[in-house]
């Protein structure tokens, strides 16, 4: 009986063990749904609509984010040369930049500082990409990068969504130029500035069919791709020439 005594407090703590296994602010219900979970980008692909839905208690703000595969970027900074032409006057390199960073918030936007701290706005990348003592050139490039991606509709923060019952849905428009790969879907719920829950899911954008075959060939077997381009062009050229020569013969 005496030997069992030290285990008694441990037994009392047993029900709390699952809480140690998940992040402190993880959602209690795992309600985040992403539709579709897989996007096939084929020959006639013109972007896709992604829908995220999650349970959001009344009084809380839901912020959803769609984050694309990360890439290293080399940016050219433009400036005037000789007072006439806009040319590259500098360069900046950033590592592991999300190719897509789209945010939807409902019913409104939490304070910017709270969003930044939660990593739920593109500006929050600054902390990682621009370390203390970063060059002014890098800061200019970072601001320019955000504007560039906003214009390309890869980055953006929009107050949008609809509530149905206890669920909130938001829609994202994924542009056709967004790269293939694994995308992260994130949900952060706020009560004022305080984070009450976080959830994450993934979706995959995959090149398919002829489009995928040609992309792969162009990248992995460039010589064969080049020869194929020539053969297709020669065949197309000779074929159209033959078709039009038939038309001329008939008109005679």
């Amino acid at each position, binding site marked *: 009986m005496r030997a069992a005594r030290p285990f008694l407090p441990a037994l009392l703590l047993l029900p709390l063990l699952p809480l140690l296994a998940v992040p402190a602010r993880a959602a209690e219900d795992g309600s985040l749904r992403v539709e579709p979970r897989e996007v096939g980008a084929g020959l006639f692909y013109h972007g896709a609509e992604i829908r995220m839905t999650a349970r959001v208690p009344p009084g809380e703000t839901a912020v959803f984010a769609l984050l694309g595969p990360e890439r290293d970027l080399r940016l050219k900074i433009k400036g005037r040369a000789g007072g006439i032409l806009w040319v590259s006057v500098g360069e900046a390199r950033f590592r592991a930049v999300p190719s897509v960073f789209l945010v939807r918030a409902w019913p409104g936007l939490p304070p910017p500082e709270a969003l930044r701290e939660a990593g739920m706005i593109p500006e929050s990348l600054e902390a990682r990409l621009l370390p203390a003592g970063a060059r002014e050139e890098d800061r200019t490039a970072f601001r320019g990068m955000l504007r560039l991606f906003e214009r390309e509709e890869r980055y953006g923060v929009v107050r949008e969504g609809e509530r149905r019952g206890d669920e909130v849905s938001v829609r994202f428009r994924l542009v056709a*130029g967004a790269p293939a790969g694994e995308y992260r879907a994130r949900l952060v719920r706020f009560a004022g500035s305080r984070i009450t829950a976080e959830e994450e899911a993934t979706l995959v954008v995959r090149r398919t069919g002829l489009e995928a075959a040609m992309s792969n060939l162009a990248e992995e077997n460039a010589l064969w791709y080049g020869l194929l381009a020539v053969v297709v062009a020669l065949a197309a050229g000779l074929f159209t020439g033959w078709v039009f020569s038939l038309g001329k013969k008939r008109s005679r």
Partner: protein
Amino acid sequence: MGPWIYMPVAGMSVPILLIAGLGMLVGFLSGLFGVGGGFLLTPLLIMIGIPPTVAAASDANQIVAASASGTYAHARAGTVDFKMGLLLLLGGVVGGTVGVQVVKVLRAAGEADFAITIVYIVMLGGIGAYMFRDSLQELRGTKVRIRASREAVRPRVRGRLAEKLPLVMDFPRSGVRFSALLPFSLGILVGILSAIMGVGGGFIMVPVMVYLLRMPMHVVVGTSLFQICFTCINVTVQQAVYNHTVDILLAMTLLVGSVVGAQVGAKVSRRLRGEQLKILMALLILATMVKMLLGVVLPPAVPVSLAGGH
């Protein structure tokens, strides 16, 4: 805008009808004026957002298709000077290879798009201004006199060149004799232009063959097409291997439009007055040049660009 098509190498989706329509417009103008049209097609593609390096390389691929049937027809008709064509082609392969490597270096430096744009501004400005002046002279009836005075000068220039250069040889099919270095150098120039700008180079080669090399017109067209076709084959393969910028889908969509447009243009050209249309073509070229010029002179909407694209 109709159905969209995803261009795997350009990395963007575009309306099929827009691309085919651009091909048709340029094909129509080609048929109307008897020019290749590559020098207009690439800048128009750049203007709708196709990366300049992809536009130039895919245009070269499209030119292979556009020139293939013409080359075949001329070869069968015996109007290709193969000896001359092979020298031009040799130069074209050297020039094309150099051009592709220049594009590769510029891409690595992140400056290829800017360089292609600048080269186009200079070339479109030159061609547009020349065409505009030429057609104005035709309308005023002063062109014949000016041409006659130039004709008197050219043989002397060509004669001096032919005398000084080594490797003089006969070209029986064309009935001319001069140094092999002349067509070889011309081929190099056209090859470089083909790689950097995605043009066939007929707009340079034909006048040089007629006025400088004194080749008969019926051989000029066939030989020029022969050289253009094979130079663009070389450029297409090299661009695909070294720069990964050839988009087959883009090239073929353009081709569909351009072959139809060229046939219509050729028919229309028989019914219309050439000088006035030529002025319109000159104005279109100059307008394209001005649009591109504004792109590098006006402050950009975004102060950065991605080196090497997405």
